[in-house]
């Protein structure tokens, strides 16, 4: 049984964060350098927290598996970042951003955290502009905004289609400043393998130098995980190839609670896979749905080119099923319906898993140039990948795994239930509930990294004696040996199948059984198939190369090990949550119109899984959710 004390501050929600900061214990400037904080990951959350803590004077070390901290996958976010600045005077406010996020998350997030996120959103923009992030400006030189993701205000700040890149480069430059000033030590091409826990507190980590293969011990007074999401459990996702669950899953194995692992956001508009060799999926911005109409042929045996199919034989299924929102229904509804029509055999493209996104009507109405100029980069990107011109023939799109709302359980201070171990950004579960609003992931990472962790960590550190445990402690030796044994076990299987092959198969199982929609049967079947695959993995893996050298196959195999175990945990969570909410659709629990049917009576809680040992079923703990500030409401996109 985990003790899940969220350490929520007292008082009205509007004042909570301020009051909380006033109550937190601090570490004085003279003492900060004595405390060593390890930050794992260098994306938005990692780079921003490492830089902030470095600037405050803590002794920070930061780790990433890429060759430079600038490469983390935050860089790929296209759309923008929300902030309740209300520059447009259109009625935006902290409260609105808070309630939009809560509604978007289908009331499965802790409202105190969400409110704080909304409250901090404006400072993020200020911070980023001060770093030189070139946000879009209007003619008068003031910041520009656009609307994003089905909200009624314009609060999204952006830099063309590369907002994530510019924000990350801002955080990266701040990090490099601190590296230059020797406040932060950077370890690139280094992968976290495990944690050293002494008397319940995290005291360090074991890493592998990906160039030399050397295992290294790092002691710490606190560890911040900013290790991102685990969408790659599906093999195909919009995540970077390197994204993995290992750091988070190893924390779980060491006692950290894993919250809501099954909450996965599936983005409706990605370019479909074209074959088995496909290595990742590329997202097309959702804005395309503003002008594109989604359809499939009515006839499952349709062989004609899309442009030859007459209007009457096209099935505009979103417009027919949801007359009010039409093609602009929320992400999960659009995704689910796409899968639905494809499962009925109506899908298009070589794999049968694709639907048309047609700009024909928009072009007729506004002219080809107007449409082209609006979406020029997206059309170019699409044409580059598929060799089709979307102005001549409809695009093909299909849903893809994009973001994972689940993550390590954290309290209001963003500390996991392992004292000293923090989780920030996509790695924690805190702010997005069962679904995330567009342009909110960047916001959350930076709120956590610039403003929350650097402040709350002092409260924990001030209670610790700095450098109490060093790397000569027995526990370091023991964990290092476990890591070594694990690697040796992998390299000595000498079977016939590559880790890629296993990963691909796991992905198919996950997509099939724990994907866009889930059912008891499908999940139970998933739970049968995954252990089988895992057994095959451990008996038939072919792993070239050795342990003490640069070995990309070994890195990947190590990640697949954790994905295999983690996939099972996801299925377990999805099975236990007998309701539909946000992105989690259980086929048994939907309204007559195939809408998600939430069960607030029985499931208004965070599912927190506790590791119980190899081969033992994990224990489900529940953190009840209370909605005092903003009461529960059902969402309705139909009327």
């Amino acid at each position, binding site marked *: 049984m985990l003790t899940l004390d969220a350490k929520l501050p007292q008082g009205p929600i509007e004042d909570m964060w301020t009051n909380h900061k006033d109550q937190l214990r601090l570490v004085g400037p003279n003492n900060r350098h004595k405390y060593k904080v390890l930050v794992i990951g260098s994306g938005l959350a990692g780079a921003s927290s490492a830089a902030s803590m470095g600037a405050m004077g803590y002794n920070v070390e930061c780790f990433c598996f890429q060759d430079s901290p600038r490469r983390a*996958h935050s860089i*790929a976010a296209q759309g923008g970042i929300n902030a309740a600045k209300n520059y447009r005077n259109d009625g935006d406010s902290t409260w609105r951003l808070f309630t939009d996020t809560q509604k978007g998350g289908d009331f499965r997030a802790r409202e105190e955290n969400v409110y704080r996120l909304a409250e901090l959103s404006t400072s993020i923009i200020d911070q980023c502009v001060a770093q*030189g992030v*070139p946000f879009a400006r209007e003619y008068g030189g003031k910041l520009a905004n656009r609307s994003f993701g089905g909200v009624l205000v314009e609060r999204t700040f952006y830099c063309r289609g590369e907002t994530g890149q510019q924000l990350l480069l801002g955080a990266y430059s701040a990090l490099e400043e601190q590296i230059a000033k020797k406040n932060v030590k950077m370890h690139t091409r280094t992968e976290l393998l495990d944690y050293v826990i002494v008397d319940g507190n995290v005291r360090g980590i074991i890493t592998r130098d990906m160039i030399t293969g050397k295992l290294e011990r790092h002691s710490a007074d606190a560890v911040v995980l900013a290790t991102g999401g685990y969408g790659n459990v599906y093999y195909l996702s919009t995540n970077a190839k390197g994204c993995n669950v290992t750091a988070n899953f190893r924390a779980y194995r060491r006692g950290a609670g894993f919250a809501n692992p099954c909450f996965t956001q599936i983005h409706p508009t990605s370019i479909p896979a074209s074959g088995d060799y496909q290595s990742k999926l590329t997202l097309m911005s959702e804005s395309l749905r503003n002008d594109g109409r989604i359809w499939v042929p009515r006839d499952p045996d349709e062989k004609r080119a899309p442009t030859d199919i007459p209007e009457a034989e096209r099935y505009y299924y979103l417009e027919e099923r949801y007359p009010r929102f039409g093609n602009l229904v929320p992400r999960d509804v659009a995704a689910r319906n796409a899968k639905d029509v494809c499962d009925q055999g109506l899908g298009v493209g070589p794999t049968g898993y694709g639907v048309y996104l047609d700009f024909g009507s928009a072009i007729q109405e506004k002219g080809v140039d107007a449409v082209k100029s609006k979406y020029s980069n997206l059309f170019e990107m699409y044409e580059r990948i598929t060799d089709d011109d979307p102005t001549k023939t409809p695009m093909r799109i299909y849903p893809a795994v994009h973001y994972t709302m689940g993550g390590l359980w954290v309290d209001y201070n963003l500390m996991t239930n392992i004292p000293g171990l923090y989780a920030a950004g996509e790695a924690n579960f805190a702010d997005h509930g069962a679904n995330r609003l567009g342009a909110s992931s960047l916001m959350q990472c930076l709120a956590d990294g610039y403003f929350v962790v650097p402040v709350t960590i002092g409260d924990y550190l001030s209670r610790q004696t700095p450098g109490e445990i060093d790397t000569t402690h027995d526990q370091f030796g023991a964990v290092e040996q476990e890591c070594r044994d694990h690697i040796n076990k992998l390299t000595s299987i000498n079977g016939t199948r590559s880790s890629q092959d296993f990963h691909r198969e796991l992905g198919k199982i996950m997509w099939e059984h724990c994907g866009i929609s889930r059912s008891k049967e499908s999940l139970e079947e998933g739970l049968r198939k995954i252990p089988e695959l895992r057994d095959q993995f451990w008996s038939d893996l072919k792993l070239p190369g050795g342990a003490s050298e640069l070995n990309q196959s070994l890195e990947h195999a190590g990640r697949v090990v954790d994905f295999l175990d983690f996939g099972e945990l996801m299925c377990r969570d999805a099975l236990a949550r007998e309701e539909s909410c946000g992105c989690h659709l259980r086929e048994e629990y939907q309204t007559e119109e195939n809408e998600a049917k939430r069960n607030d009576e029985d499931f208004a809680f965070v599912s927190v899984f506790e590791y119980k040992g190899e081969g033992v079923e994990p224990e489900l703990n529940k953190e009840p959710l209370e909605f005092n500030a903003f009461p529960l409401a059902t969402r309705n996109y139909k009327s």
Partner: protein
Amino acid sequence: MKIRLHVWRQESTDKKGKMESYDLDNVLPDMSFLEMMDVLNEKLTVEGKSPVAFDHDCREGVCGMCSMVINGQAHGPKATTTTCQLYMRHFKDGAEIYVEPFRSGAFPVLQDLMVDRSAFDRIIQAGGYISNHSGPKPDPNSIPIEPGVQETSLDAASCIGCGACVAACPNGSASLFTSAKISHLGMLPQGQPERYERVGAMVDQMEGEGFGSCRNYAECEAQCPKGISIAFIGRMNADYLKATLVEPVDGRGKMHAQ
């Protein structure tokens, strides 16, 4: 499609490398170049040979991790395209394809096609930032920025730090990378206080890393996956000359303790 690959194989930095040839006959035009490399690697793995090491991550053209010179061009034959966004349909059936790592003395080969580009991080450390603490800042609209300035600054900031400019430059110069960062910050009002100190420090670091000098070939601009303009190099030169010959030096970087 059938293709013949000639790939640079090198075990580690201190070992000698050489080109090796591989035939692939199940390549599909819709595969990306890296997916084709994946197919090769799976084949090598199953055959018990060591797969080709190469850097890659986001596979959507923005992280800057992928880094191959394909048929003599950084990121291959297609302009403004990273290797991960290059497709096999851009090659002919039966093509011979040469794949080499980015070549530069400042980018030592780690293994096969992987190189160490940490020199770029050190150039940024030398001054590629606006000094800041995290915390309350003035409202951004209190400093209006002309949209044109913002746009050009963003053009420069679009650099993904892949190193193609160095690989492409006949002189192995890192001027395009360095100038893009200097221009991004140097054009914005927020970047003014450190503008001349920045350009001096970053250029010094760039030279200290052993990159070659710019000779205005414009090869970098042509092979840059983001199409960054060499106009930024001109800007960097002007700022550097101003910093060295005109701007007062004494105050810079030498504040008195107060």
